[in-house]
């Protein structure tokens, strides 16, 4: 690759002012190329943009279809009776899902009791004692959050059901708690990080007991993020089915199991119940998610 231009070579060697003329020639080449190619470049760009934009309705369509179907089919089933009456034997009309609602509530309560305090203290540990151990825990929490819920269900089965030989809501709550834990730990730690370090050290320098300092300063500042993160984790856990398969007595006692069961039954009655329960579940998840984000928003505005 010689520096000499082809013209120079043709003319037998470099000439004094060649550089400036070369510049002009190259300038012309670029300008011409830019002008001639702009239309093609723009059109290609627009075509690709259209292709990308088409993906958006394609991606949203299933969600919209699902929501519409659930509302349309579920609305017919849901009523005050539906929510407050216990189920009737299959084939018998009437009855509701009250047992399932209560059962799900109980399970989630156990899960919260396990995961919330644990999540807080683990996050505090990660926050205050950074190091190799903390990195290992953080990494494994991230990997744990990718473990399929069905495997966590089997774990709960092994721990509780095998040993005690009966299924229970505690076992189910344990499984859901384990599922929620990594998310809560992540969210809590992130929330604590946004609390200014100066605040922490300032609190300490005032001579308060260390644990009291940590609790009041860090937690108060991190409260919005912690509440939001935990609420969102609960919203996700509420919708889990697989762990409950191995740990809950009967589908009548958990909403998600009920849907799963009734979906495969040939009776239109059962399917109707399934839609209704699905609608209730969806509404619950929606309320939890929206509450979580609203909490974050309002508490953020207050502390700013």
């Amino acid at each position, binding site marked *: 690759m010689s*520096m000499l231009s082809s013209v120079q070579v043709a003319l037998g060697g470099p*000439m004094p*002012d060649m550089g400036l003329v070369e510049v002009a020639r190259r300038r*012309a*080449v670029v300008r011409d*190329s830019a002008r001639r*190619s702009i239309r093609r470049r*723009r059109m290609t760009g627009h075509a690709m943009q259209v292709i990308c934009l088409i993906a958006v309705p394609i991606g949203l369509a299933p969600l919209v279809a699902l929501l519409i179907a659930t509302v349309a089919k579920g609305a017919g089933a849901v009523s005050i009776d539906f929510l407050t009456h216990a189920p009737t034997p299959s084939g018998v009309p009437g009855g509701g899902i009250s047992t399932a609602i209560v059962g799900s509530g109980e399970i989630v309560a156990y899960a919260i009791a396990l995961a919330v305090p644990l999540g807080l203290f683990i996050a505090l540990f990660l926050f205050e004692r950074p190091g190799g151990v903390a990195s290992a825990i953080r990494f494994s929490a991230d990997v744990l959050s990718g473990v399929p819920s069905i495997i966590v269900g089997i774990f709960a089965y092994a721990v509780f059901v095998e040993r005690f030989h009966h299924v229970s809501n505690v076992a189910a709550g344990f499984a859901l708690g384990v599922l929620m834990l990594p998310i809560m730990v992540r969210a809590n730690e992130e929330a604590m990080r946004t609390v200014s370090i100066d605040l922490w050290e300032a609190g300490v320098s005032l001579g308060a007991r260390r644990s009291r300092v940590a609790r009041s300063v860090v937690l108060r500042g991190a409260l919005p993020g912690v509440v939001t993160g935990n609420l969102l984790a609960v919203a996700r856990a509420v919708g889990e089915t697989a762990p409950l398969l191995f740990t809950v007595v009967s589908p009548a006692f958990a909403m998600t199991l009920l849907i799963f069961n009734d979906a495969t039954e040939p009776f239109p009655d059962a399917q109707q119940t399934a839609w209704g329960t699905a609608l209730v579940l969806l509404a619950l998840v929606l309320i939890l998610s929206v509450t979580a984000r609203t909490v974050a928003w309002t508490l953020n505005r207050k502390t700013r």
Partner: protein
Amino acid sequence: MKRHGEVTNPASNHSSDPRARVENRSGQLARESKLPADRLDPRTHGTGVTLDNVSITFGAHLAVRNVTLQMPARQVTALVGPSGCGKTSVLRAINRLHDHTGGAVRGTVRLGNLDVYGPDVQPEVLRSRIGMVFQRPNPFPTMSIFDNVISGLRFNGVRKKRLLREMGVAALHNAALWDIVKDRLDQPAVRLSGGQQQRLCIARALAIEPEVLLMDEPCSALDPVATAKIEDLIRHLSSEVTIALVTHNMFQAARVSDTVAVFLLGDDRIGELVEVGPTDGVFDTPSDARTKAYVTGHVG
């Protein structure tokens, strides 16, 4: 002007008068590249930048107002002043980068005779005539050194490999980087040192053979040795390109520029152009009291 089938005759170029030789060669090149000969002679040709009553607004905030400034062709014009006076905004108005930052530009900006914000102007084609070097070196991290240099050519549709190679090599020479990178052209660009990366960015800008080169505090992230090399480069390049250099370093402006434009914050915190003129004049005998205060360090 262009005659088909004319055979180039090297013999006719061996006259003793250098100017005649150049003019003959211009004619030859003209026939080869199909352009009028006088357009090819850059000694009479060069593109300056003219700003006429330019004001730039971001949303409701007026950043800089009523800038009227001429940047002469093939000279270095320095825009100096403390931060926040709008120097960078003015620079970016020239190659219409404000189309994407949400800045509204009022007034007229001309590249040579062309109204940059005119209705028929396509920004991409406009930008192929203007090169830009940014404050922190920003070579494309996923490209090799040589691919970085020719990236601008590729963006503009130049495809012939021979041409790309030729122009890439020339640009690396012009940026005084060839000897350093000639053995590792396909290595990732990010492995160069800061100063070398900045020269790579200059080479990248030069490869499209711009008429104007905009430089936004190009040395502010570099050490003194690298800075000196780039200042050298700037002086050297100005024989071919018009250079607009934003710098907050007055000494750099004094070392490198032919014309200097001083920007300061007005009383209402809006940037404005306070004085413009030949570098020696402005620094030795400033006309405006504010300039004097700035130059002697009382302000800014």
